[in-house]
């Protein structure tokens, strides 16, 4: 019985071999923000359960949400939602067989990336201006 011969087989290229493209970055970010939002649903559940439980539980929720770390998490959640939403709209376009041109796909992806940041700032500006300084 001869030992199996070790052959140096070529491996498929990994991430570092590819040039950066916005479509690639947005694809990765889409998945990461999706997982972030998945974990963030626990916050939505906490908000609703606190509201269903009573004033004390709700006050505790507001204290945590209003702390600097709470605001940071909520800000991240807002951006993840805005980015995932706009980024996700691209898939409807692509499902319809549209916007596959390299240049078009890049423009659409950059728009989603920038739009996500703009939308996040707009939402927070609206929240702050509606209720004064938080």
């Amino acid at each position, binding site marked *: 019985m001869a030992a199996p011969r070790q052959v140096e087989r070529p491996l498929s290229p990994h991430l570092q071999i590819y040039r950066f493209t916005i479509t690639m970055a947005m694809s990765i970010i889409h998945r990461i923000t999706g997982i972030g939002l998945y974990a963030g649903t626990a916050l939505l559940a906490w908000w*609703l359960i606190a509201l269903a439980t009573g004033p004390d539980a709700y006050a505790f929720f507001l204290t945590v949400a209003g702390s600097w770390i709470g605001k940071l998490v909520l800000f991240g959640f807002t951006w993840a939602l805005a980015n995932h939403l706009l980024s996700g709209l691209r898939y409807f376009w692509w499902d319809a067989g549209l916007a596959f041109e390299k240049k078009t796909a890049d423009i659409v992806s950059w728009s989603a990336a920038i739009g996500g940041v703009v939308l996040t700032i707009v939402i927070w500006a609206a929240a702050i201006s509606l209720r004064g300084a938080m």
Partner: protein
Amino acid sequence: MSKKDMRTPLAKILHLGSARSGTEDHVVQRATALAIAPLSVFAVVSIVALVGADYETAHAYVANPVVSILLIALIGAFVLHMRIGVKITIEDYVHTEGLKHFALLANSFFSYGIGLACIYAALKIGFGS
């Protein structure tokens, strides 16, 4: 009449090939996304409007039947959407059989658990005095 079967004999006895249900996750993912897009805008606008509001105001707002129904619809679509999203991520990256099945099960428990908790709370707010 019969369509030409492109599968090899080995693939046939291994039951490989289309089970006519391969696109279900994809279709549900897009359908729920279509529902979530406008509903999440509504939820964000609502939450922004409730920033700084006291308990009674927030409770009365969510207790409004239209708000309750829209929130429950959002949560339902959200749960289905996020369960599939994480399911396909696990299927992409976790290749150890046992661990994969454990992760898929944990994913379903978390997703449906969150959904159940949110819907129960929303109903309690809506039906409560």
